[in-house]
C-alpha cells in the first residue's frame, strides 16, 4: 500500500486540520499535483532546473579520513551542501514554485527557521519572477542575519515575526495567517514534510531525489550492495524523508533520524518530539508534538535554528510507530563537536542542523559489530552558522 492514503493519512498521522478557508485550496492543489506528477512536461521542467540550475546530481563522497577515525564505519556523504544556495531545500522550492506557476499564483510566501528554506524560496521566486514574502521569527533573524541579507538581495520581503516565541513555529503561524488572507493569489511553499495533505507527500516526493540518487550511486560504488545505515538530521524532517523514502522497501537498510536534544531531553529544552512520542495536532496535521499537560504547544529549543520546532512531519511519526526508522537525539554540545569533527576530518563545514547527524556517527560506530557502511545526508553547509558559533567554540 502506498502512503499517504487518499485522505492524506499515514496510519493515524497526517490529515488535514485546517481552517475551512484553506480546505478547497488544498483539494485543488492535490489535484493539480497529481496531474503534474504524471505530466512528462512538468517532470522534464523540474528535472531541468534540478540539473542545470541547482546542480544535481550531488556527489556521494567517501569520507576516508572520517571513516578511518570512526574505525567501524565506512561513511559516504551525500553532498546536498554543494547544491545552489547551500542546502537540500532548493529541491523542494523549485518543485513547488513550478506548481505555483501551474496554478496561476502570482505571490509566494514561506516560513523559515535557519533561513535556508527562506533563501531557497526567495531564489526560486526570483528565478520565476514571482513576488516573495518570507516569515521568520524575530529571534532567528538575529541568529541568522546573513541569510536575512541574502533573502533581501534576492528580492524577497522578510517579515520578522514577533508573536509567541518568535521562532519557527510562530513564523509558520504568521505565514498561515497571510495565506488565509491572500489565498486566491498566494502559494505557500512549506519547507518541510509538514502541513496538511498534500504537503507532506509533495515535499517528500520533491526531496526523494536525494535518496534515489544516493541509492543508485551507492550501488554503483559498492558492488550493487545497499548501505547498512542511512543517517540524517530531523527537524521537520524533509532531508531525512528525502533520503529515507527511496530505501523504505529495503528492509535491511537501517534508517536513523537524529533529532535535536538541545540542552538535554530531561531539561524540557529540546526539539525532539519523536523521542518523547506524544501525539498532537499543529499546523495542519497530526504527528508527534511537544506539548504541555494541558495541550498547549511547547517552545522548542535547539542550537540549530532549522531544528528548533516542536513538531515533526507526520510520515516520520509513522516510521517511528511502525519501527521502520529509529530516532535518536544529540544535544547542543555534541552537535558542536560534530561540526568540528567533520570540518577537521574532511574539510567540510556542515550546517549546525547537519552537525547533529554527524555527531551521531561516533555513537553509531561504538554500537555496530564488524565494519558497516553508512550514508550520511549532508543536508547543508555551515557558512551561515559561522558567525553564531564563533563565540561558542
Amino acid at each position, binding site marked *: 500500500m502506498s502512503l499517504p492514503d487518499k*485522505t492524506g493519512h499515514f496510519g493515524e498521522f497526517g*490529515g*488535514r*486540520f*485546517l*481552517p*475551512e*478557508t*484553506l*480546505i*478547497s*485550496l488544498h*483539494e485543488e492543489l492535490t489535484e493539480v499535483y497529481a496531474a503534474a506528477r504524471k505530466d512528462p512536461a512538468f517532470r522534464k521542467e523540474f528535472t531541468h532546473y534540478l540539473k542545470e540550475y541547482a546542480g544535481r546530481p550531488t556527489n556521494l563522497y567517501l569520507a576516508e579520513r572520517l571513516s578511518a577515525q570512526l574505525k567501524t564505519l565506512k561513511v559516504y556523504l551525500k553532498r546536498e551542501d554543494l547544491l545552489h544556495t547551500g542546502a537540500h531545500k532548493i529541491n523542494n522550492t523549485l518543485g513547488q514554485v513550478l506548481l505555483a506557476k501551474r496554478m496561476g499564483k502570482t505571490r509566494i510566501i514561506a516560513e523559515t527557521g535557519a533561513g535556508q528554506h527562506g533563501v531557497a524560496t526567495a531564489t526560486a521566486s526570483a528565478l520565476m519572477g514571482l513576488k516573495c514574502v518570507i516569515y521568520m521569527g524575530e529571534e532567528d533573524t538575529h541568529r541568522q542575519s546573513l541569510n536575512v541579507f541574502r533573502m533581501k538581495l534576492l528580492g524577497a520581503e522578510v517579515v520578522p515575526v514577533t*508573536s*509567541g516565541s518568535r521562532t519557527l*513555529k*510562530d513564523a*509558520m*503561524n504568521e505565514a*498561515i*495567517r497571510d495565506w*488565509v*488572507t*491572500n*489565498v*486566491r493569489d498566494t502559494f505557500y511553499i512549506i519547507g518541510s514534510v509538514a502541513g496538511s495533505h498534500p504537503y507532506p507527500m509533495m515535499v517528500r516526493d520533491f526531496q526523494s531525489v536525494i535518496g534515489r540518487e544516493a541509492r543508485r550511486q551507492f550501488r554503483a560504488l559498492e558492488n550493487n550492495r545497499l548501505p547498512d545505515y542511512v543517517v540524517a538530521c530531523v527537524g521537520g524532517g524533509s532531508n531525512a524523508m528525502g533520503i529515507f523514502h527511496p530505501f523504505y522497501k529495503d528492509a535491511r537498510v537501517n534508517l536513523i533520524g537524529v533529532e535535536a536534544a538541545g540542552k538535554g531531553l530531561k531539561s524540557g529544552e529540546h526539539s525532539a518530539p519523536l523521542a518523547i512520542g*506524544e*501525539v*498532537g*495536532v*499543529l*499546523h*495542519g496535521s*497530526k504527528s508527534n*508534538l511537544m*506539548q504541555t499537560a*494541558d*495541550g*498547549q*504547544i511547547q517552545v522548542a529549543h535547539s542550537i540549530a535554528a532549522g531544528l528548533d520546532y516542536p513538531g515533526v512531519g507526520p510520515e516520520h511519526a509513522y516510521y517511528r510507530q511502525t519501527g521502520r526508522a529509529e530516532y535518536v537525539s544529540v544535544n547542543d554540545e555534541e552537535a558542536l563537536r560534530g561540526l568540528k569533527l567533520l570540518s577537521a576530518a574532511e574539510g567540510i563545514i556542515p550546517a549546525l542542523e547537519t552537525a547533529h547527524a554527524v555527531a551521531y556517527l561516533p555513537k553509531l560506530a561504538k554500537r555496530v559489530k564488524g565494519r558497516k557502511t553508512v550514508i550520511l545526508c549532508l543536508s547543508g553547509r555551515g557558512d551561515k552558522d559561522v558567525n553564531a558559533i564563533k563565540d561558542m567554540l
Partner: protein
Amino acid sequence: MNRIDRTFKRLRSAGKKAFVAFITAGDPDLATTAELVPALERAGVDIIELGVPFSDPLADGKTIQTASERALAQGVTTEKIFQLVKRLRQKTDIPLALMMYYNPIFHYGDAKYVAAAAAAGVDGLIIPDLPPEEAGLLKAAADRADISTVFFMAPTTTARRMPLIARHASGFIYFVSLTGVTGARAQIPAAVKKQIAAAKKVTDKPVCIGFGISRPEQVRDLAKTADGVIVGSAIINEIVRHTGKADLVPRVERFVKTLTAPLK
C-alpha cells in the same frame, strides 16, 4: 434539543436574528469573565462563545492572539474553564459554546473532553482547525451528549463542499465573512451575502456570519441575510480599553448593547 437549538427556535418564531458574542475566557482574568457573561446577556446577547486560549492561534488576528496570551499568562487551563462554566450555569441559561483549537481537545481525549464539557454545561464546540472530515470521533461523542458541533463555511468553500459541511454541522453554521483572520474591519466584502444565500439553499440549519464585524450598521445589514451575527474582536478591544478600571463590566455591557440594538 440543547440551549442553542432552543434559542434559534425561539428567535425564528419571533422573526428575529441572533446576536452571538465572543470573549476570551480569562481575559483579563476568570473572575471578570464570570461577570462579563451575565453582563453580555443583559446587553441582549443570545449566544456566547467562550474562547479557550491556545499557544498557537493561527486563525486569529492580533486582538484575539493577545487576548489568548493574556489569558494563558493568567494560568487559564481546560479545567478552570470547565469550572467557570459550571459556576455560570448556577445563574444563567444562556447558550455557551467553547471556541478553541483542536489540540487541547485531542490531548484531553475527544470523548472524555465532550463528557466533561457536557457535565459543566457547555452547549457547543467551535473548532476552526477541525474540518468535518477529521471530526469523526468528536462528532460522535458530541451527538450523544447533545452538544452542538459548529462547522465553518468560507468564501472559498466550493458548492460541492457545502452539503457536506451542512450535514455535519449542528447548532449553527459559522460563515466566515472574508478570507482572513479574525479582527475588526471597517468593511465586510459585499459578496458574502450571495455566498450565505447559496449556503441557505443547501441547509435549513441557522447560518451565522462572523469575522471582522464591529459596528451596529454592519450588524443590521448582515442580519438581513444571516440568521445570526457574531462579534468578537470589537468586544475584546472594548475590554482591553477598560481593563484595570472599576467600571469595566458596565462599560462593556453598554458597548455591546449598541451592537445588539439593531436586532431587537
